[in-house]
């Protein structure tokens, strides 16, 4: 099962290494990872996408909580959270493929952020399903290069997950 885990950490020297070291040292998987400051600059939020059976996910959450610099760990379940990831993808662009590319840009509400004679670079934001669908359609046209940010996630509604709540 894939899980999206949000971790609020003290913004201290070495804290990323502690979290990542925990995953590698105990054989847990990281599918994606993103980190940035929160509203409170002494605190950062990491979003980690991982997978494993129920027992492994339970251990991951407990082990994360055990780290001294970790303030709060939230495991987001289906539907309770918003998640987004950004993708920048550089496409082969020929006279034949350009119309199809523009059509896909429109459908997926992507943006063209750079053009050259042979390439279009697209910026696309969405949840996991949307990006997967877009990539499926883009791949046959010819991808030259691509980069993804990793997922960020937030609870829906009024609840906060920054540790102060």
């Amino acid at each position, binding site marked *: 099962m894939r899980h999206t885990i949000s971790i609020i*950490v*003290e913004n201290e*020297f*070495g804290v990323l*290494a*502690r979290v990542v*070291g*925990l995953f590698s*040292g105990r054989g847990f998987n990281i599918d994606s990872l993103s980190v940035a400051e929160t509203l409170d600059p002494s605190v950062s939020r990491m979003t980690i996408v991982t997978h494993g059976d129920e*027992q492994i996910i*339970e*251990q991951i959450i*407990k*082990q994360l*909580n*055990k*780290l*001294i*610099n*970790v*303030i709060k760990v939230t495991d987001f379940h289906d539907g309770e959270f918003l998640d987004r990831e950004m993708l920048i993808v550089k496409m082969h662009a020929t006279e034949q493929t350009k119309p199809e590319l523009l059509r896909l840009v429109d459908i997926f509400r992507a943006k063209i952020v750079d053009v050259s004679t042979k390439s279009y670079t697209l910026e696309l934001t969405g949840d996991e399903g949307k990006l997967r669908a877009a990539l499926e359609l883009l791949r046959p046209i010819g991808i030259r290069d691509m980069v993804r940010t990793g997922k960020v996630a937030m609870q829906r509604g009024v609840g906060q997950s920054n*540790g102060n709540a």
Partner: protein
Amino acid sequence: MLIECLKLEGVETIFGYPGGVVLNIYDALYSSDIHHILVRHEQAAVHAADGFARASGKVGVALVTSGPGATNTVTGLATAYMDSIPMVVFSGQVPTGLIGNDAFQEADIVGITRPCTKHNFLVKNAAELPGIIKKAFFLARSGRPGPVLVDLPKDVVVSKAPFKYPEKITMVGYNPTYEGHLGQIKKALKAILAAERPVIYAGGGVILSKAADKLTKFAKALDIPVTMTLMGLGCFPGSHKLSLGMLGMHGTYRANLAVTESDVLIAIGSRFDDRVTGKVDEFAPGAKIIHIDIDPTSISKNVKVDIPIVGDVSAVLDQFLGLMGDVDGKERKKHLAPWHKQVKVWEGEHKMDYGQGKDEIKPQYVVEQLREITGGDCIIATEVGQNQMWAAQYFTLDKPHCWLTSGGLGTMGYGFPAAIGAQAAFPDRVVIDIAGDGSIQMNSQELATVVQYGLPVKIAILNNRFLGMVRQWQELFYGKRYSHTVMDHAPDFVKLAEAYGALGLRAEKPSDVKKVIKQALAHPGPVVMDFWVAREEGVYPMVPAGASISNMLLA
């Protein structure tokens, strides 16, 4: 400033080894009343701090220089981390301006020790030093205890900042749970009272939480048999009739069968280590499992727990005892009589026995004689291997904090320096390291330390001229192909002791054993006893790795 902080933390003794970047600290020590013991290898400083902590229940402290001094602490930290021992290690570091430059004797010790410490700190300026030291000691001793490393760059130690030791510290991310959940406790008690075949499985957490008395009261009041892990030995009196002895790979026949047949298993301060459970699916298959532990990660990590209780063992046992006012002792005895009868049957089916003849000294006999002649009133350290298991099986312990052994990591070379730490904490007590001829060679340089400080540690080498435990596995599982476990090239241990200025004694036949032990105990200084024991004696019972614990090889 560092020294001031140590004094405020109540530190009286530290174990260390100097070097370039800690010269200033050593200079301050020169005129301070903190007792510093100069070891001969930094690994020994950390094990000594660990032994000090296990024996005294206080935080052990070690001090080393940067680079190689710091990397030499890694085994000691990992050993203490696995066994949750409260300890603070101070390492010197190159000046902050040089960090990252591959400066002379620079090592990223914070990076290296991250996975084998409870937490670690690099102090970046003098102003944060007192706060970090306070946190380090607090983290080491609170919650599930563990080693903490504090890395001290030279310029930070030298620079002056106004000294203020914080009264209180806050760590938003650190909040151990001490009291157990009352609902869970009531539920557990109900299950325990209804059980027909209950067993208590107690571990090192009972000792760390200083709850041996409470556990004993709890077990006696409910009339429940107690088995202990290697780390838990001493948390319940081993000679009490409710004691089943140790469980697991080299546990007793009755303990392993009782756990397997139990209907309620009460795990207290133990963590279902693979050396205890054997094959997990067949571990206490019919039991409802209750688990009391301060560390939530220990619960349901290896074995699914039915009633988890997160909390400090001591506090939780108090809560249990508070609810047990109306437990009727007579009624309990009647209720559990069939179970005790069954345990007795198992006890009769297989007794711990080794058959001491006239010619060869049996290692188990040496351990039993040590127990008999000391009356058990001493602190036992062990090395790792057969010596450790025989010590666990045959040196019946009745009290906590008298047993220093590397359980989780299984570190050869641990016992002797740990014994030094315990002896430093209790100069007047008898401290014995039960050793193998292989292990003792890993830190035998510390003979110089015990002689220098007049620490009267007694070492009992069960000398089989093999790396015995590995040999035993080769005998059983590798067709007796003794690949690189034969150690007939060892020093003459008597002469080795003498070379350092200690007393060396040897026993070659069974009739020498008592004499040697008595002579060693009568000697006021450190002694090495070299017992030439039956070379191919094995440790039994034995559960082969990965088998069910009810599946024991008995000889």
